[in-house]
């Protein structure tokens, strides 16, 4: 039986077709899910923000009017900047308190003390718990009268310190920041620990032999070589801080009580977008504009921070 050149060409084309169909089969379902439930909505959010909305019905094209309302309208923009201020406060505080402590824990664990494994598990435990659970749990603990925190303070005699933590504008936000730090310190701690473990032993041992103190070693060798992990944690902490929603929602409510001292961009967004479904106002557009602004803030920061921090990574080798 003689195979003609034509048969051969046909077989080749057939094979190419089979490959195309197979790849399409593999890629189509995941791509469809991604497009339908992520890319399309995201693109729409951008789209919606430049229109006026009547409840769920889209109205006229109004350009950047929604954005103006959020940023410049005196009735609204107080809320925006107040929430923004709070988000920034959260970010900075968490960087210092949460990630600072995490760094110390990581440095200590890197020396492989007895029980290091158990410590790792213990520190990571709150990370896996739902924010809702943590929020409710601490809300109960912080109850001025029945909560364990104040009961403890009373027991050891610090009665003046037994404040209504979540009820005072001055203490509400700091309290929540501490709760967040308690819950999440394990995550950066483990990431930092892994980064430290990647540093070649010889470098550290050589420095020890050269007579460097622990502090010096940490400052001059470990810290610079951890740069990539630091970059990631900084960016993730920022994104997390600007996405704060569940914790304040549970512990303080949708309005950021008391007195909007715990209002966050996330809460503001939710109120703007959905607080009005029942009211039937025209907030979808404004809400979308707010969403775009928040997205831009996160996006810009991530890019700038990554650029700056990555340059540092490269320097440090």
């Amino acid at each position, binding site marked *: 039986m003689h195979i003609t050149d034509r048969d051969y060409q046909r077989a080749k084309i057939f094979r190419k077709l089979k490959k195309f169909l197979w790849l399409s089969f593999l890629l189509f379902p995941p791509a469809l899910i991604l497009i339908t439930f992520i*890319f399309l909505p995201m693109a729409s959010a951008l789209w919606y923000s430049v229109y006026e909305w009547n409840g769920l019905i889209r109205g006229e094209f109004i350009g950047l009017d929604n954005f103006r309302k959020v940023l410049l309208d005196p009735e609204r923009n107080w809320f925006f900047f107040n929430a923004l201020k709070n988000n920034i406060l959260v970010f900075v505080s968490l960087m210092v308190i949460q990630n600072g402590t995490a760094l110390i824990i990581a440095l200590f664990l890197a020396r492989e003390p007895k029980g290091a494994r158990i410590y790792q598990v213990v520190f990571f435990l709150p990370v896996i718990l739902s924010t809702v659970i943590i929020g409710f749990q601490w809300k109960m603990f912080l109850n001025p009268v029945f909560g364990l925190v104040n009961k403890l303070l009373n027991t050891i005699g610090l009665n003046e310190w037994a404040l209504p933590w979540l009820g005072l504008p001055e203490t509400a936000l700091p309290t929540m920041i501490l709760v967040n730090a308690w819950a999440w310190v394990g995550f950066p701690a483990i990431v930092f620990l892994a980064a430290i473990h990647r540093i070649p032993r010889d470098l550290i041992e050589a420095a020890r032999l050269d007579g460097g103190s622990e502090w010096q070693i940490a400052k001059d060798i470990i810290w610079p070589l951890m740069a990539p992990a630091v970059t990631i944690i900084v960016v993730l902490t920022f994104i997390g801080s600007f996405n704060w929603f569940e914790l304040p929602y549970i512990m303080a409510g949708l309005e950021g009580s008391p007195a909007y001292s715990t209002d966050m961009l996330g809460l503001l967004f939710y109120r703007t977008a959905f607080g009005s479904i029942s009211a039937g106002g025209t907030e979808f557009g404004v809400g979308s504009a707010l969403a775009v602004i928040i997205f831009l803030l996160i996006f810009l920061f991530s890019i700038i921070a990554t650029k700056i921090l990555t340059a540092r990574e490269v320097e440090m080798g």
Partner: protein
Amino acid sequence: MSGIEKTNTVRLENALIQIFLATAALFMLYPIFMMVLSGFKTTPEIFMSPFSFPERLNTENFQVIWNKTDVPRYFLNSVIVTLSSIILLLVTGTMAAYAIARYKFRGTLMVSLFFLSGLMLPIRLAIIPLFIQLKYLGLIDNLLGLIFIYTAMSLPATVFILTGFLRSLPKELEDSARMDGASELRIMIDIMVPLISPALVIAGIYSAVPIWNDFFFPLIFIQSPEWKTLAQGLTSFFGEYSINYGVLYAGLSLASLPMILIFIIQSRRFIAGMTAGALK
């Protein structure tokens, strides 16, 4: 510094470190411990003697939760949603990762960037169009809507993790299977995928935890009480039992239980899984 002195300094340092770590660990565990403990106390007991052990291991609160509240129902919903999402996620994620990792074709780069870019997009901010879209698809107040959203959210990271692992398998395995006559589908199912089972577990855990704990999407998309998931249901549960601290603590404990159990058993995998994204 003489050898002995140096050892003493080191010993002192180590001791201090232990003290610090132990104190910190206590600080981490104590609240959780108290939460669980208080679940076994009656409400008056909690108020009277908050720090002591319960008089007896009172399971009344837990029984209330089991029999009288909707918490079991919420639990079940969470299980359905999380499990279904993970299955759908791992199947579609593996398919995409396989195409990217094992084949060269025009646009491999574009496709992998396509999936990766999903990582950067904070889907929560597109909640409005998502709401409208789900309404259009009839998936509001429906667990299926949640499943699709969670799958979509977790796909980029999953594809990323799985692609890395699939790439590391030697090409000769594929070639050998081709010579054995296996079709591409068979090669994928019989040979390549079984060899990355640890990666599937890691990707599964990495995605399962945020899905199980999520509160935001059910809050918006689920209105009927029978479809509420655990995290969301706790809110209404708290509303109902706002002064019955005993029951409340029991509820929180019960809700934490699955995660804590799995975590303690699989802690190594768990930690690896959850930090997989950050560590790349």
